[in-house]
């Protein structure tokens, strides 16, 4: 098959699965009784609730971004550039909240700070009353989303620090101490990347649905979900979703214009891993104590509260009997979703990397746009496009969930592919071309095997994000096909605290176990050398 024809087919698949549902949803929302009308939008704009939603959404996103950036940047520098003990362990620990559904973190904090939480037993109900009020609202949402998205800043800071040519810092070190070098050279060099990471956190918070729903804080995705699922008012749901689509689009356009060229230039530097390390000296133990305290408060403590509340074999037996099928489905759908994401992401990543078409930037931007968009919007779009008798083989089957995963998370695998391919010299494929190999043979026998580490990493990341997904799945799952995050969410209405805690622990284990096994296997086989 001709290379360009194949890649056009790949792009069409992506557009049909990801973009068409959004366009279809927007087009349908301005069509009332077969005529163009802005009725739903006018209604929505005229309500005072609209302004509350705008204020709440922006406040939550701004504060979460502010705190994650202020705390995440120093942590990233500490883990990447200093002699802080156990920094690899800390990096892994701080990443955990990103890997589990954020509302599970919310449940664990509820089990700690809620009216009947652990705190009420340790201290007194009056204190728990205060902490509960604090948790249900803006501060609670900011706390949980801060711990969820903190790893985005930490991991991207670590990644971008590796792009700095060590000679640049060494030249600075000749005339200044590390604080001066960090302030004057290192941080300005990674600033485009840091801003990109902050924008990502802002958009992910803006689209977050599970935590604000659980903590009863009204934001756009909650309103959109409520209008759709409780009232089945599609027009109002879309009107509530439209501002999110527009804001996400505008923010990404701004990012594209001002930052993208600069972040594309951030490639791994030669010797970037061997850059000189900052000796913390006498401050080492103080930094260690601060990191341990932060790690304990936002990661270990909530997890132990869940464990504490579910310390009974009977509870786990009940949890498995009530949600064992959902667990199995979650793992199966996540595995299928991750495989599909790996394939689609690899080809889109290849297209972006090799600039196969002039519109490669548009493809890249659209994948990021869908990733940053709220899962509820993608879900509503998918339902509207595929909910018809001719396409019931998609809508009424788990295929619709896989479509949801592909729409939302392709950016992850395509970006991982782009980064991986950037590290393979172009001469490798050119040598295969001179040897007479056609493009598919070159990709399958040379490029893909050389990119296997990236492909495996992409599969694992895809698996985790599919497994933790709730925004899309909650809306699109066909009857009898709910996943564990959805089952936990629905059981929260009438399940006991112990049962919910046990299910959350099972969910965390299901997420982290393959990562642990994968990590050990890779190390044994030398994949991570």
């Amino acid at each position, binding site marked *: 098959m001709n290379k360009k024809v194949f890649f056009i087919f790949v792009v069409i698949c992506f557009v049909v699965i990801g973009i068409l549902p959004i366009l279809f949803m927007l087009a349908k929302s301005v069509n009332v009784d077969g005529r163009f009308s802005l009725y739903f939008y006018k209604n929505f704009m005229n309500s005072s609730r609209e302004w509350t939603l705008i204020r709440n959404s922006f406040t939550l996103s701004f504060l979460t971004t502010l705190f994650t950036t202020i705390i995440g940047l120093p942590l990233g520098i500490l883990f990447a550039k200093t002699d802080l003990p156990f920094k690899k362990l800390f990096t892994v620990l701080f990443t955990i909240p990103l890997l589990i559904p954020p509302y599970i973190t919310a449940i664990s904090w509820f089990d700690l700070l809620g009216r009947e939480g652990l705190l009420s037993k340790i201290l007194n109900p009056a204190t728990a009353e205060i902490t509960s009020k604090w948790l249900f609202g803006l501060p609670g949402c900011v706390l949980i989303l801060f711990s969820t998205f903190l790893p985005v800043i930490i991991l991207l800071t670590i990644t971008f620090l590796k792009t700095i040519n060590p000679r640049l810092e060494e030249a600075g070190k000749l005339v200044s101490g590390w604080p001066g070098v960090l302030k004057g050279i290192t941080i300005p060099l990674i600033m485009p990347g840091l801003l990109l990471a902050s924008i990502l956190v802002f958009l992910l918070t803006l689209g977050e649905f599970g935590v604000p729903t659980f903590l009863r804080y009204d934001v756009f995705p909650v309103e959109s979900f409520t209008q759709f699922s409780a009232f089945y008012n599609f027009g109002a749901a879309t009107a509530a979703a439209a501002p999110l689509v527009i804001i996400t689009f505008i923010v990404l356009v701004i990012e594209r214009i001002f930052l993208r060229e600069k972040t594309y230039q951030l490639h791994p530097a030669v010797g970037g891993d061997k850059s000189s390390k900052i000796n913390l000296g006498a401050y080492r133990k103080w930094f260690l104590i601060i990191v341990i305290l932060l790690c304990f408060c936002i990661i270990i403590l909530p997890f132990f509260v869940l464990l504490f509340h579910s310390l009974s074999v009977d509870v786990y037996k009940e949890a498995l009997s009530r949600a064992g099928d959902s667990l199995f489905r979650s793992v199966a759908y996540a595995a299928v979703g991750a495989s599909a994401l790996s394939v689609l992401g690899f080809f889109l990543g290849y297209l972006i990397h090799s600039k196969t078409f002039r519109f490669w930037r548009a493809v890249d931007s659209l994948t990021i746009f869908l990733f940053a968009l709220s899962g509820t919007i993608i879900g509503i779009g998918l339902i509207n496009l595929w909910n018809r008798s001719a396409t019931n083989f998609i809508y009424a089957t788990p295929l619709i969930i896989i479509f949801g995963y592909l729409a939302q998370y392709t950016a992850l695998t395509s970006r991982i592919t782009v980064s991986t391919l950037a590290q393979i010299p172009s001469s490798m494929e*050119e*040598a*295969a071309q001179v*040897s007479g190999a056609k493009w598919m043979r070159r990709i399958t026998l040379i490029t893909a095997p050389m990119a296997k580490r990236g492909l495996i990493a992409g599969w694992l990341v895809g698996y985790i994000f599919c497994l933790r997904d709730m925004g899309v799945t909650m809306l699109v799952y066909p009857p009898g096909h709910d996943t564990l995050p959805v089952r936990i969410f629905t059981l929260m209405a009438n399940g006991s605290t112990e049962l919910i805690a046990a299910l959350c622990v099972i969910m965390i284990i299901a997420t982290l176990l393959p990562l642990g096994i994968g990590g050990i296997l890779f190390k044994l086989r030398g994949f991570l050398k």
Partner: protein
Amino acid sequence: MSIIEFKNVSKYYNDTPVIQNFSMKMDSGERVAILGPSGCGKTTVLRLLAGFTSPDSGEIIINNQIVAAEGKIIKEPEERNLGMVFQDLALWPHLSVKGNLEFGLRAKRVQKIKREKYIPEMLKLMQMEKSIHAKPAELSGGQQQRVALARALILHPEILIMDEPLSSLDQDLNVQLRKEILKLHNKIGFALLYVTHDREEAFDIGSRIIVMKDGKVERIGSSEEIKKHFD
């Protein structure tokens, strides 16, 4: 008869000319070295000849067939029957020495029985038969060069292009491998287009030298003529 011809070829990157009105001819079995400093456009000439990039104007002709002209690649690299040794060698790290050599033979659908014959023969010619199952990372610099050369020659190309292949080697090994390249050339008889910034290497390998500067041909002549000019 000319096997390679560049007719007024120009190439621009972001409106900056990399090569301008470049013309040259090369006969079958001839050895030509392109000599010039970094950034003079010599690697671009090779990439144009291989088909990795297209000329903005002018024509490239191989074996009397126009393979690229005026922004278009008419014949893809895999159809040009060229062998190429890259500056970084581009040995596929996930494949063994045998795998690296076998790749092109498989792509050209050479039967297994013939593949099993050609690979040991070629490795014997390169004195590399003992390393047939080794991965590139397990080989020394000189051995990697030989494998890259073997891979380029296994399909019996009429033209071999080499992009500063010896630049990363120490002087002794560099001289030794030059001799081996010349020996192979005499034995097999391919047309050799060799790019280097090293005068001694160019005079040693090329029977004819093309001196390039700022994307243009500054001088063309026999090895002796160019040597005299520099002296």
